């Protein structure tokens, strides 16, 4: 069976898992960490850094270090969210050619999927190192509230990273899969997922026989741990300004240090009552004197600063329950997911809302990747142990006369599904209709997301309202939306499959795939060089150790001297190749070294 890895591509951290021998496990990276920061940087030398190393150098390379790219993925340049990010981020966010978002690093433009692909590629590599073989398939998770564009863009990122993303699943759903997997649980559960950048709440029904049915899901793609950090930053900046009259926001390096310190303080306050933010030499004043930032932050104060954010998540929970047609007491367990759920204020709020203590059995940072791996296994397994019945998180419909949005598939509809409606022409002798496929909850079309459009032509010339067109929306099990329009009179049809709305064209993706592959090859080669070098060096050391003994044994014969000369030549050549980094020749030379070593060992062995 082919291995399918599960990747939790998070806003701040990513995690990769796999099912081994029926048991889902999270894979640690080379540094031994189970999560990897979702950060990418380009150094001055043009070197690409991903993960912990990118995070560590962020302070000194803030302008060329991308964090929280997930907040930008699949969004349009002119959206409010992107504009906010553009004004807050130390790295430069620019407009792309298709009204999409590009990130400029060291003079080169990167699309957001490309940046995400670098992280996915890193996760793929971590899995491959652990498994010892190449991995091609993955299940990647996204926030439940991601729209179609964001999902497509995530899929594109997978493709660029050389991964076949066989399914995109929602993070809270993945968490529920990991929670219920193999446990024969028969319950209705709520998953409260407050991560680095997004908040999601999902209600699921789990059957003891391995069926997981999502009942309802909702969320906020712009509410997460980073917003909590921002509150602390704001507080620090304000108090510093009061004291010294200097706005730390204007200094990018200071801002980055503030960001790190705030995140650290927030995490610490989950376990202690009070912490100190200590940033010496944060900035210098007009007289060129260095200024320090030193503040004590208590847990109650942090809670005061962020109470409204937590309140917002509870409101979303309320709305979801209502949509599911469930009472609080019908929820039999509450699962907490995401690093932010370590915050005591969050835990208390959830507990008092659901009137029950949240489940503590799952690891908030790893459970999503585990769930993704489980889904990957379940899909590819011959006799499927479990099946996931997911829902569409947004309403789908088309635009009708007057700029209104006509719903075809309401949100929280279990997929696969299909719905049809009949529409008529509006004008006399109208021979074509334009179908604008949209996604969103507003009754005004312009407030919703445009997924695609197409035109049905060749309609009969007739007075308005006489020609009828049937529009059918279909979502298949893979979450792919397709729309057909049919002239009911002639039976003529037009249809589109909604794809590639990530702002990248097919050609662009292809180019990026090639580029990323080159990069992967380059990296592989360097890995191989390292491996070959180590092996060669090991052999050389062994040979050199044997030289004295061998010389003693064969010194008498010409044949022996020849052999020793030859051996010295082999070692010298290998050393030169190591120095030159010539991997192909070195691999061949290793054979020669191994032969020499065997021969030496044989000679010495015979004597003693």
């Amino acid at each position, binding site marked *: 069976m082919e291995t399918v890895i599960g990747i939790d591509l998070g806003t701040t951290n990513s995690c990769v898992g796999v099912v081994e021998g029926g048991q889902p496990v999270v894979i640690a990276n080379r540094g031994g960490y189970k999560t990897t920061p979702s950060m990418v940087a380009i150094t001055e030398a043009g070197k690409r850094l991903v993960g912990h190393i990118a995070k560590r150098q962020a302070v000194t390379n803030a302008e060329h270090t991308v964090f929280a790219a997930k907040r930008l993925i699949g969004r349009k340049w002119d959206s409010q969210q992107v504009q906010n990010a553009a004004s807050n981020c130390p790295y430069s966010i620019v407009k792309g050619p298709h009204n999409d978002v590009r990130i400029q690093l060291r003079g080169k433009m990167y699309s957001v999927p490309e940046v995400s692909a670098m992280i996915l590629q890193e996760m793929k590599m971590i899995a491959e190192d652990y498994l010892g073989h190449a991995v091609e398939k993955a299940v990647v998770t996204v926030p439940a509230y991601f729209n179609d564009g964001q999902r497509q863009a995530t899929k594109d990122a997978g493709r660029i990273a050389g991964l076949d993303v066989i399914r995109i699943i929602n993070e809270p759903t993945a968490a529920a899969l990991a929670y219920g997997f193999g446990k024969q649980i028969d319950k209705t559960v709520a998953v409260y997922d407050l991560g680095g950048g997004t908040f999601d709440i999902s209600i699921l029904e789990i059957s003891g026989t391995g069926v997981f049915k999502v009942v309802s899901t909702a969320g906020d793609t712009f509410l997460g741990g980073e917003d909590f950090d921002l509150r602390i930053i704001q507080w620090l900046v304000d108090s510093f300004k009061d004291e010294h009259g200097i706005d730390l926001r204007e200094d990018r390096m200071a801002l980055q240090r503030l960001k790190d310190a705030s995140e650290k303080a927030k995490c610490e306050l989950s376990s202690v009552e009070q912490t100190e933010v200590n940033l010496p030499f944060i900035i210098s004043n007009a007289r060129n004197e260095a200024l320090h930032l030193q503040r004590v932050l208590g847990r109650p104060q942090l809670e005061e600063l962020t109470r409204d954010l937590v309140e917002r998540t509870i409101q979303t929970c309320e709305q979801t329950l209502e949509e599911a*047609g469930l009472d609080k007491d019908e929820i039999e367990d509450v699962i907490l997911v995401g690093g932010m759920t370590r915050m005591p204020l969050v835990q208390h709020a959830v507990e008092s809302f659901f009137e029950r203590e949240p489940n503590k059995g799952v690891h908030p940072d790893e459970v999503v990747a585990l769930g993704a791996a489980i889904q990957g296994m379940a899909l590819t397994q011959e006799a499927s142990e479990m099946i996931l019945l997911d829902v569409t998180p947004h309403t789908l419909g088309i635009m009708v006369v007057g700029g209104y949005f006509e719903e075809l598939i309401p949100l929280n509809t279990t997929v696969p599904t299909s719905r049809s409606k009949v529409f008529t022409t509006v004008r006399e002798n109208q021979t074509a209709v334009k179908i604008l496929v949209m996604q969103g909850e507003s009754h005004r079309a312009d407030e919703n997301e445009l997924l695609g459009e197409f035109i049905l032509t060749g309609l009969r010339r007739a007075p308005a309202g006489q020609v*009828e067109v049937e529009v059918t929306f279909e979502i298949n*099990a893979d979450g792919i939306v397709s729309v057909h329009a049919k002239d009911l009179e002639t039976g003529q049809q037009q249809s589109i499959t909604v794809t590639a709305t990530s702002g990248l064209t097919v050609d662009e993706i292809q180019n990026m795939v090639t580029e990323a592959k080159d990069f992967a090859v380059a990296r592989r080669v360097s890995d191989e060089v390292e491996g070959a070098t180590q092996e060669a060096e090991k052999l050389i050391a062994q040979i050199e150790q044997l030289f004295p003994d061998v010389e003693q044994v064969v010194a008498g014969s010409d044949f022996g001297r020849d052999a020793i000369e030859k051996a010295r030549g082999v070692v010298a050549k290998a050393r030169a190749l190591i120095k030159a980094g010539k991997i192909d020749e070195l691999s061949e030379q290793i054979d020669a070294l191994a032969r020499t070593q065997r021969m030496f060992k044989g000679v010495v062995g015979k004597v003693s």
Partner: protein
Amino acid sequence: MAPRVPSLVSGVNVYALPLSTKEGFVLSRVDGSASVEDISIMVGVKQDELLAILERLAELGAVKLSWSTVQRSVAGSGNAARPPVTPAKPKPAAVPEPPVRYDPRELDEVAAISLEVKKRILGAYYSLEGKDYYQLLGVARDVDKKAIRSAYFELSRFFHPDSQFGKELGSFKPKMESVFKRLTEAYDALGRAPRRKEYDDYLAATERTSVLQQTLDQVQHDTEMLRHSQAPAAAASVQSEPPAGPEPRRAVMPPPLAETTPVQISMRPPPSAEERKAYARDRLRRQLGGDSKPASWPPTAEQRPVSSFPVSNESSKDRRDSAIKGLRQSLRASGHATGGSDRLLAHLKQAKDAESAGDLLGAAGALQSALALEPERKEIQEQYERVSKAVTRSLADNYEKQARYEEKMGKWAAAALSWERVAEGRPEDEYAAHSAAEALLKAGGDLHKAQRYAQRAADLQPSRVTNVVLLARVYLAAGLRLNARRELEKAVKLDPHDEMISNLLHEAR
């Protein structure tokens, strides 16, 4: 050796058990008195196999075997880990195998699934039609929530396309999706107590109204026949012999309806008004109650809706039949009475009795019979009008309940039909007229009708802006922009700030 008699374990929800049809059949024969030998004969299964099946049933907790120790503590949850004794896949309910409704050649289609799986997919797909939600899930109407959930979950495990992920499924995949979609629709309606109650009420209401409606139709039909047979009898009263075998009047026969047959598109002339109407009717009928499209196969079969919004079903048919039987008897009885005036009096008395007993339908029937005898009598005519209006009114109440449910479920075509009936029953009800027009518009139904109802609503409440806007929307949909503009200008006067009106007005210009 004493005969081995298996017995049933009470309180087990057999629908939730993963049984094969054979196992289900065996289970249905276990009654605590039939011995293994008896059952073997009854179901035609050899004793060895039967014993194996019984042991599995015991394992599942469905039966008790006096001679065996195999028992299971918890029954009904269905343990999928245990392989069934028979080679069949676990099935959710012990329903007898439905008759094969598909073309066996469909099994030949190349797909990476076994013949058994293919059969089950095709069998389910072609029997979707006309099933109510309970039938779809294969559960009885009185089962509890857990049973509904586990039936749905078990069926989903099989029919969700992910169960065959990555395999070449050909046309089986969309079929699985169709089945799954309908199962989900059923579960969504039955899985939550409040929604289930609504559906139950709706099912009951449709059954009631359909009994009423059909009885009413039948009364009218019978009366027509009676009138026809009695008219010559009265005319020929001098003759001693009444003519035998009365012929029903032609008009009560269903009018010949131009069937819309598939026509080659390229050869098709512009449709006539009649064709268009027939087409609209056909489409409305097709959409009745459901937005699910019938699949492409069988192309020759009548395109009926795949819907769980039944017009009638078995039990309502039974009740209807008995109601009709009663009516016929009463009609016949009155027909046999001697002397015209006696008969007339008998009918009138019957009508009075029926009405005071609350049986409006009986009263209407009796009055119609009376009218048939004395068609010119004004007071009978008035009485009949009054009673039949009352009948329509009480029907209208039922239809309104139906309509509201259908509307809520987004079944606009069904709702349109129901609202129309409400509006017919209550001609002065502005809300019903408005709703009928709106539902017709949403369902893409007959715009002439929609216009009539919208106009009626607007006439009844000319100051209500929503009525005026609705009328305008109907006109817009029908392409009558001048009329739409006229109405929208009225609407603007009523509410100058509504953005939607100005948008529509822009559209109309």
